[in-house]
């Protein structure tokens, strides 16, 4: 077994044992946001597109999944799928508009379209407006595993996360992922090599939106409600922060970043109240000014330097 496989096995073992010594709901929250950030990283880190509207997909999936479970009484698995599919569809619509512009305009277009989605949710009747969609039943898995038990739900959420993480990992390391990286590094050259860049960008966008939706639907299942904060631009900013803090364009960066941010928010919420936003803003500024490779990026660079020195002798 290679060292890499060993590391992954150790991480999986940690994930399986985590609820024994950490409050499972907190770990589930971290897993949901880690999945959200990983999906976002697929776009920012590997395709070079900064979307400032990813909360729209997260929130849409949460609302649709919640509505499907509560009002239509669908089984849990189908409810999650419905939410995820809705996010994917929305991703296709937003993506096909947004990829008409690049760079800074791309960010503004996604932000504006997400704000439109937010206003629609604010006005629509099925979302419950300011109150949100509350009291969604968690249901059962495959009809016999009771998900209202936190520990059962934890392993279900972990399975979803591992599956989605594997999917993203495979995407990044596939020929498709290589083309995405080529687009990130040099778009004109990718075009001149004959790649239909718009198509690849859209596919990456839809994939990212769908997985962000899976994260949103799962988070809804954990907390049993969907609210407007799930679709607010603050959340779009937070997922950007998680990704650059952890290290964009690295496989584990978003997981690290979201663990830090969620834990921080959890610890600070009672102590400093509304100053949490200020702290998040400061982390943002520090990351951009001095820390652009993120935690995982810096550690990897340090490791490279140490190994390189040893090799040189």
């Amino acid at each position: 077994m290679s060292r890499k496989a060993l590391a992954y096995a150790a991480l999986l073992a940690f994930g399986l044992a985590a609820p024994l010594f950490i409050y499972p709901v907190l770990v589930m929250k971290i897993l949901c946001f880690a999945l959200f950030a990983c999906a976002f990283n697929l776009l920012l880190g590997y395709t070079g597109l900064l979307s400032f509207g990813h909360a729209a997909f997260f929130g849409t999936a949460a609302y649709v999944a919640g509505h499907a479970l509560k009002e239509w009484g669908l089984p849990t698995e189908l409810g999650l799928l419905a939410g995820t599919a809705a996010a994917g569809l929305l991703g296709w619509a937003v993506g096909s508009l947004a990829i008409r512009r690049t760079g800074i305009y791309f960010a503004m277009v996604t932000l504006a379209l997400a704000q439109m989605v937010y206003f629609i949710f604010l006005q629509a009747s099925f979302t419950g407006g300011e109150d949100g969609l509350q009291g969604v039943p968690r249901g059962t898995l495959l009809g016999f595993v009771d998900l209202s038990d936190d520990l059962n739900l934890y392993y279900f959420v972990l399975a979803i996360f591992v599956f989605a993480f594997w999917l993203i990992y495979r995407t990044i390391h596939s020929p498709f992922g290589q083309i995405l990286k080529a687009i990130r590094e040099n778009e004109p050259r990718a075009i001149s090599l004959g790649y239909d860049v718009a198509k690849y960008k859209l596919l990456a966008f839809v994939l990212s939106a769908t997985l962000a939706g899976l994260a949103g639907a799962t988070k809804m299942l954990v907390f049993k409600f969907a609210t407007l904060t799930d679709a607010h631009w603050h959340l779009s900013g937070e997922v950007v922060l998680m990704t650059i803090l952890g290290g964009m364009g690295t496989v584990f960066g978003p997981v690290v970043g979201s663990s830090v941010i969620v834990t921080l928010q959890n610890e600070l919420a009672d102590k400093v109240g509304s100053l949490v936003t200020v702290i998040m803003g400061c982390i943002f500024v520090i990351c951009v000014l001095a820390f652009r490779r993120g935690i995982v990026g810096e550690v990897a660079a340090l490791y490279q330097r140490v190994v390189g020195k040893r090799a040189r002798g």
Partner: protein
Amino acid sequence: MTEIFGVPIQALMGQLMLGLVSGSFYAMLSLGLAVIFGMLNIINFAHGALYMMGAFLAWMGLEYFALGYWQALLLAPLAVGLFGIVIERSMLQWLYKLDHLYGLLLTFGLALVIEGLFTNGYGVSGQPYSIPEELSGAFNLGFMFLPKYRAWVIVASLAVCFCTWFVIEKTRLGAYLRAATENPKLTQAFGINVPLMVMLTYGFGAALAGFAGVLAAPAIQVSPLMGSNLIIVVFAVVVIGGMGSILGSILTGLGLGVIEGLTKVFYPEASATVVFVIMAIVLMIRPAGLFGKER
């Protein structure tokens, strides 16, 4: 009573005026964004927060130092402009060589910090700021009543927009500015202090946002979140107009304000989203924006 499409003319004209008022704010803010973007290649996410700062400084001036509206109209933009210069010198100037997106991310972080601090100090509920005495009341135009303050907002913002256009397009300073936007290295080689101009440009853009904030203070309640909701609409305005031309920014801002006002009359449910819908349509038909150039 006279009616147009089943809507009383007073109501229609009233909403049209309100639309022009919000259009004036869109125009001033998108103008500031365009000027900053031209020079610094940065989209200033903190623009909404600076606008909010302008309004809050006016309110604080009245509350703590008994400074009236007219003093605030002069002093608050100056203070916000100075604050902008500090930001440019201490943070933004290190980012010019990097991808443009870092500027967006940095100013986003700054917006969070500024808004968070004001929210922490004053809560999210609004603070009332009364209309100055000279501008309270209304003109009777025969077919409608025109509140004096609304007329003043439109006139003042148009004047400021016109001055900005005049300085940039018609004066020597503006010529330097345009040269530095086009080719900073060459302009610097001619002996013009480009970093200084970049700094002043950001300061000016910030001051413009602050000025808009003071103008807005009596029209809407002063609250820490007044900027962030507005700035996203202004982003859509910028995408629709494109940032290539100054007159384009002004016209797009005013036009979209009017369209939004009319939507409030004919289909109120869509008034919050109409600008975004127009943006989607423009992206489909003319991706570079109405006045933009494809880069």
